[in-house]
């Protein structure tokens, strides 16, 4: 597709339920990022992939959060045993270049809105 695609756009989960959020980056993009954005806040970094390798997962808030990108394209962010504080928008972004922190343009998807009740 032309842009970064995320699904589902909206998800309501009961506390304790597991959720999986999918990201289809722009075709051929090497770098893929996940960010979490709480209401009224800026996006906060969760994790980064270069192709299939997860090079940085320092932003994942707990071991309930897990991300993968097994074939270097589509990525899934999984949250186990969801809690109310996990309610946020989860943004995926991709970039054509491998070297992050080098002034490359990154393209964001529209986000997956997660509400935990």
């Amino acid at each position: 597709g032309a842009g970064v695609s995320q699904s589902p756009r909206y998800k309501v989960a009961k506390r304790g339920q597991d959720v999986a959020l999918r990201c289809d980056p722009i075709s051929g993009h090497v770098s893929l990022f996940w960010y979490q954005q709480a209401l009224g806040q800026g996006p906060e970094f969760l994790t980064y992939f270069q192709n299939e390798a997860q090079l940085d997962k320092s932003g994942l808030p707990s071991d309930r959060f897990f991300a993968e990108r097994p074939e270097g394209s589509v990525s899934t962010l999984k949250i186990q045993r969801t809690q109310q504080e996990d309610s946020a928008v989860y943004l995926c972004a991709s970039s054509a270049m491998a070297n992050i922190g080098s002034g490359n343009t990154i393209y964001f998807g529209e986000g997956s809105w997660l509400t935990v009740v």
Partner: protein
Amino acid sequence: SQKIEQNSEALNIQEGKTATLTCNYTNYSPAYLQWYRQDPGRGPVFLLLIRENEKEKRKERLKVTFDTTLKQSLFHITASQPADSATYLCALEQAGTALIFGKGTTLSVSS
């Protein structure tokens, strides 16, 4: 501690005026600074990037300045229009790290 602060959460101006948004940072050494626009319910959209050795960058009605001594970037929208109403995010880039975002400033331009 490390901080990125955008001057205010909300900025209200009249159509035709220049909007000036501020981004200040503490205890970072960014090589690049980027500005994004985010509309309600949408993802951020890239607007402009400025390098640490550049003082100013322009694109149409947008202008960004970057002062590494003051640790500040200013983002200007000239001849503002109601369609410019959105949240504007500044983001820092340090070598080898992903973008670090501020909280954003919500701009409202009234006609």
